[in-house]
């Protein structure tokens, strides 16, 4: 009984922690961008201000039930995913859920968004969401391969186990040193899943005027902002858990997850985006190839 209560508390607490860390990740992203662009950048609590303001908007234009559900799915998918991502001291239901569930859950937000945007009947939104699904299709293949490889390597789909295995032998047992090729492929997949340049095809303001977000205002946009901070958190923590040995304690955990996130974020501000068709070709070519090579190594 006590275990269950603790689990429930963890399940509640983990998304909250994730959200807070996610907010700082958004801040880091914007600060790094600012630095590269030779400017100061936003103040410390800017991501929070944005979200509170958006939820505090008077006008909240909904385009129908599906629109609302779409946003709930987008945020909810990640909220659920957070409970499956172990952080130092909190495992939540990670031991029960496993990696496969998590992989599924990370797809839910995109689908939810697709539902919601479809309701808006704005051609730009539709183009945007079709691009988002295309890119999801593109990066999911290497992503699944990578997950499969990791699971094979550690003979487990339980993240708690995977982390424990990695932490057992220090750096030499980390995923990254055991399967470096797969780790690179994983980084690619993570970058693509974040939708940052050069893989940022579905926001693309100059082409389709911010795609899926075109009809989002007020709390819906706020929802997307929340989703973004969860997304950054999920992607980086998942990567840290798979390849960098998870968090031994909060300090290393934060260092690792912020550090790993910095890579795609910094690259994003130095490159333009690919064309949609180029993206699919590229992602299916290099990361998939790398992932397959990686998995070949693993299987050996």
């Amino acid at each position, binding site marked *: 009984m006590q275990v269950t209560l603790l689990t429930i508390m963890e399940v509640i607490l983990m998304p909250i922690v994730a959200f807070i860390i996610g907010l700082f990740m958004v801040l880091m992203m914007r600060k790094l961008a600012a630095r590269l*662009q030779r400017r*100061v950048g*936003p*103040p410390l609590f800017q991501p929070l201000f944005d979200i*509170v303001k958006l939820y505090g908007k*008077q006008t909240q234009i909904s385009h129908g039930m599906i629109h609302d559900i779409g946003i709930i799915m987008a945020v909810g998918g990640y909220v659920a995913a957070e409970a499956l991502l172990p952080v130092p001291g909190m495992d939540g239901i990670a031991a029960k859920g496993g990696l496969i569930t998590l992989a599924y859950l990370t797809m839910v937000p995109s689908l939810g968004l697709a539902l919601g945007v479809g309701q808006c009947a704005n051609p730009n939104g539709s183009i945007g969401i079709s691009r988002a699904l295309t890119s999801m299709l593109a990066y999911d293949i290497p992503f699944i391969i990578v997950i499969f490889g990791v699971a094979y390597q550690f003979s487990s789909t339980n993240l708690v186990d995977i982390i424990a295995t990695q932490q057992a032998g220090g750096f030499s047992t980390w995923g990254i040193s055991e399967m470096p090729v797969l780790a690179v492929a994983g980084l690619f997949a993570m970058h693509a899943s974040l939708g940052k340049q050069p893989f940022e095809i579905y926001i693309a303001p100059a082409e389709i005027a911010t795609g899926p977000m075109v009809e989002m205002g007020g709390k819906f946009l706020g929802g997307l902002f929340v989703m973004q901070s969860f997304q950054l958190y999920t992607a980086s923590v998942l990567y840290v858990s798979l390849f960098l040995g998870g968090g031994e304690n909060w300090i290393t955990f934060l260092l690792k997850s912020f550090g790993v996130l910095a890579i795609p974020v910094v690259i994003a501000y130095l490159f333009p985006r690919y064309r949609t068709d180029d993206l699919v070709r590229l992602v299916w070519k290099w990361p998939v190839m790398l992932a397959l090579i990686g998995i070949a190594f693993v299987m050996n």
Partner: protein
Amino acid sequence: MSNTDLSNIEVNQKPVAKRSNPFANVFNELVSFCRSRSMFMLHYCTGCGAIELPPAMTSRFDMERLGIQPMVTPRQADILLITGYVSIKTLKRVILTYEQMGAPKYVIGICSCTVNGGMYWQSYATAKKLDEYIPVDLYIAGCMPRPEAVIEGLQQLMAKIKTDEANSWKKYYEHYDYYLGNQQHLFGNNWQTPTDIIGEAKTYQLEGPNTLGEHTKILESVQRPLEPLEMKL
């Protein structure tokens, strides 16, 4: 121009009804604070003053320090910057855009042209006083104002928002008849927008004695029914 004179329009001085719940007050203040610290600016270059916005946004004067960032669609934006003259063709789009923005929304009139016609006061193609068509919160003088002046102006607006004084958007609902009349004067009587302002005014309980009038009657007579997708609160 229109039947109502601008001077007849009074500012909405009604203090926001303080709710008895102290938490609600704290919450209100928090939201106002966040509103002032996070302003999304609509990326719409209506006129030549827009050329000083990129410097204000980019590295040299970095607006993001104040939490201001450009946004692409009106649905996401809080501030509408009217950067200089608005040609009549643009004015229609400006009004459509303004009506689509989510309340609370703020309008800043930059340059001389938004106040009294500016350089183009004899031009048949530009509107002269922006305030006749949409309510304006703040004007920034200059032709065009420098980025520093724009940023200074935005800080003024932030201060106003923080204290809940920037309420021009309510004026649009309360005096819709006046604004609509001026719009009809310029665009003709069959002018209509896809946004149901009267309906919104009712929803926000901002319907005042001047919301409806002879001009809204004209609107009702020419209005084709709004499709559900186009307007839903």
